């Protein structure tokens, strides 16, 4: 079995617990002064990569875990977090603040990164919680012509470079099997990410972080989708409370719900 060279793309997003606010100009969501952190699904990818090594799950072993993020300089914070969780090294691709890449551009960038880093397994989150697109992993697999398994809740390694992935699908789970190289996207049930402890955070500061530009990957931040406007969804007004079950039943009847 080949040794694994895992590439883990991660994204810095507005923290999942923050309620996003649309900006006044209606061009996007207010990001200044808002808490950001690693996209939750990407934490699962980092955790899974580290566990594959720690638990010696892959017969050929894990040779390298490289995290990569394209974003403003602050994206380096999430790369450091990933290294504190156990990734070996990081690549930061500098993208001007507000010049966010679309999934297709990210997939093209990652294809180049996979070739340069000689990765044979790419572990991505199934979607980022800002754009909610759920595209990048599948697009990358398509561009590379590799096997893909999306929304993974279990990843198992077999003989002869084979990987079995249990995927979350509508109504249950489905298992597929393929050989390396492969693209896998993570779902919530895959694992529970660890918290980086202080000694590991200190150690992560010494791990290598290489800085690159979009030009290094032959990618531009030109957009195919022009955002015409971003608005708040129509607000939903609570209808008040009732005293007891009888009140609940009669109110539901009034509303025509039962």
């Amino acid at each position: 079995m080949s040794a694994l060279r895992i590439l883990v793309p991660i994204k810095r997003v507005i923290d999942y617990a923050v309620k996003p606010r649309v900006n006044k100009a209606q061009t996007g969501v207010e990001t200044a002064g808002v808490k950001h952190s690693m996209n939750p699904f990407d934490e699962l990818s980092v955790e899974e990569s580290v566990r594959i090594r720690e638990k010696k799950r892959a017969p050929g072993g894990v040779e390298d875990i490289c995290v990569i993020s394209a974003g403003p300089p602050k994206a380096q914070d999430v790369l450091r977090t990933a290294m504190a969780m156990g990734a070996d090294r990081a690549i930061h691709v500098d993208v001007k603040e507000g010049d966010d890449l679309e999934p297709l551009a990210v997939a093209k960038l990652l294809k180049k990164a996979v070739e340069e880093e000689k990765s044979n397994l790419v572990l991505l989150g199934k979607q980022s919680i800002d754009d909610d697109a759920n595209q990048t992993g599948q697009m990358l697999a398509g561009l590379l012509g590799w096997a893909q398994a999306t929304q993974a809740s279990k990843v198992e390694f077999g003989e002869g470079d084979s990987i079995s992935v249990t995927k979350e699908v509508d109504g249950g789970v489905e298992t597929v099997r393929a050989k390396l190289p492969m693209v896998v996207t993570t779902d919530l049930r895959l694992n529970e990410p660890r918290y980086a402890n202080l000694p590991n955070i200190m150690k992560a500061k010494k791990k290598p972080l290489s800085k690159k530009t979009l030009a290094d990957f032959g990618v531009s931040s030109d957009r195919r989708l022009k955002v015409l406007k971003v608005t708040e969804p129509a607000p939903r007004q609570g209808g008040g409370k009732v005293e007891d079950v009888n009140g609940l039943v009669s109110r539901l009847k009034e509303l025509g719900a039962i």
Partner: protein
Amino acid sequence: MLCTARRIVAHQLPGRLTQAITSPVASLSPAALRRLASTLAVLEQREGRLNQGSLNAITAAKKIGGPIHGFVAGSSIKAVAEEAATADGVEKIIAVDNGAYDKGLPENFAPLLVENIKKGGYTHVIAGHTAFGKNLLPRVAALLDSQQISDITSVESENTFVRPIYAGNAVATVESSDPIKIITIRGTAFAPAELGKGSAAVEEGVDPKVESPTEWVSEDLAKSDRPDLATAGRVVAGGRGLKSKEDFDKVIEPLADALGAAIGASRAAVDSGYADNSLQVGQTGKVVAPQLYLAVGISGAIQHLAGMKDSKVIAAINKDADAPIFQVADVGLVGDLFDKVPELTEKLKE
């Protein structure tokens, strides 16, 4: 010929429209441009049965304008194709009969779609934002060098679409400049096209017979006699407040039975093992929009609200009067769910 011409025109549209004043394309009115649109609606099938839920792709296609073709693939596909051919608004069903496509593996299904999209010269390709659509369409988009538009809730024009972002906390209107627009739609935002109203022709599609490096091994689907969560008219959902799987089943099931409702759950309930993963409602689970959504023991985190706030009527039972769910609920009852829900179930049975 017509198809080829249409494709060439479509390719010219984004860039040339402003500069090529002398070109015949530039002089076309928006309505005429719309007539050049043609859409392929990707329909799902399972074990020789058409997935009725995928017919809403046809409804979304109608809003774009232009002819609509449906696409199905799998073993013994004839019956599925003929059923789909009766859908209201479809001109043609493209069918590919090959068991290799039964499991919808994107590695061979994506090249299959790409070949048929190219052959038909389609300007739009639409599928549901389901496990199948999410897995497949981005791969198709990448092969066509198109930036997909995911999970749309509305069609504004043939190139402008509305989609929720940030777990539904913001709504973006986006305009695509790609010659072929690859789109997944939010099922609850478009009604399924009616069957039995049309009589489209069924045509054999091209089959590139690409080998899949991925092999389908097995599946384990939750069996249930209840209505399907994604399309149910009523949903009863339980959260952390249910405390255990036994209590979840004991309290929620009779209530769901009394209402003829599907059962849903919050992420907290799923993570604690009270309910199956496939029942999760929210940003990372299913998005539902039933007539009635009854939230029991659910506080109402933004990730959960993302999956249910378009419900017609929301009712909530929670012992915490300050739970955020009460801010969106049309009717709320503060109290212990272990008292209130059995009482409610009894009243509903009367």
